[in-house]
């Protein structure tokens, strides 16, 4: 099952894939391309991915959700060129109880944002474009210099010119 597609996303088949008479609640999420970012007018987006890892990571996220809750999850993320108002990601989570459906759906979108290697380039009204850099980007962990692996200490601030 491919999690990435260049085709427009449609929630209906995802819902159909997870829905069943034993699962009384289906929670869904759609992420929509917004027309603004940091106060600038966006005209379109280009999503690119590390395809093989993105597929593997989506599969792991879905498996984790299905292990944490009694739930079935479907997930698709679009890549390539997207226009304003188009859907970039769709999630459907079906569970016997709506609590689990909502929690799993929320878990999946948070994990997708945090872990799946996808990037987007925004094209602005003024003709420029830029890669989107989230303000709270996670950093790699390096525990090789730590005394206690379970109590990580922050590394000293960088003195090189490689900083972001």
């Amino acid at each position, binding site marked *: 099952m491919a999690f990435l597609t260049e085709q427009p996303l449609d929630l209906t088949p995802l819902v159909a894939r997870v829905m069943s008479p034993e699962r009384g609640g289906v929670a869904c999420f759609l*992420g929509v391309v917004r027309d603004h970012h940091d106060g600038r007018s966006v005209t379109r987006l280009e*999503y*690119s*991915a*590390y395809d*093989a*890892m*993105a597929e*593997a*990571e989506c599969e792991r996220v879905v498996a984790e959700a299905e292990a944490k809750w009694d739930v079935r999850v479907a997930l698709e*993320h679009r890549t390539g060129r997207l226009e304003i108002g188009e859907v*970039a*990601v769709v999630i459907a989570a079906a569970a016997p109880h709506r609590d689990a459906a909502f929690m799993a759906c929320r878990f999946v*979108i948070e994990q*997708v*944002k*945090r*872990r*799946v*290697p*996808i*990037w*987007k*380039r925004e094209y602005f009204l003024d003709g420029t474009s830029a*890669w*989107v*850099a*989230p303000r709270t*980007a*996670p*950093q*790699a*962990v*390096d*525990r*090789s210099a730590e005394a206690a692996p379970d109590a990580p200490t922050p*590394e000293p601030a*960088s003195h*090189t010119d*490689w*900083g*972001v």
Partner: protein
Amino acid sequence: MTVSAASTVTVRVLLFASYAEAAGQTSLTLTLPAPATVASAIRALRAQSARARLPERPLCAVNLAHARLDTPISTGDEIAILPPLAGG
């Protein structure tokens, strides 16, 4: 990939999005002294490609899974240096 007993480790390094643009390339091959880690691959990458403006501790993956900077790497591994993610 099994851990090599040889004195060097040869890996493929992938760059994406802003990192690929800055470096002017999307992949390269690095040969490192054994034993090697993700961190030593990044050090070698910086030495080889001054244009790749990597942060101090970039997000990394080894063989399609997120990895720590101290993750050991072996010949044949695929290392990826990941700019801040923006999916979803």
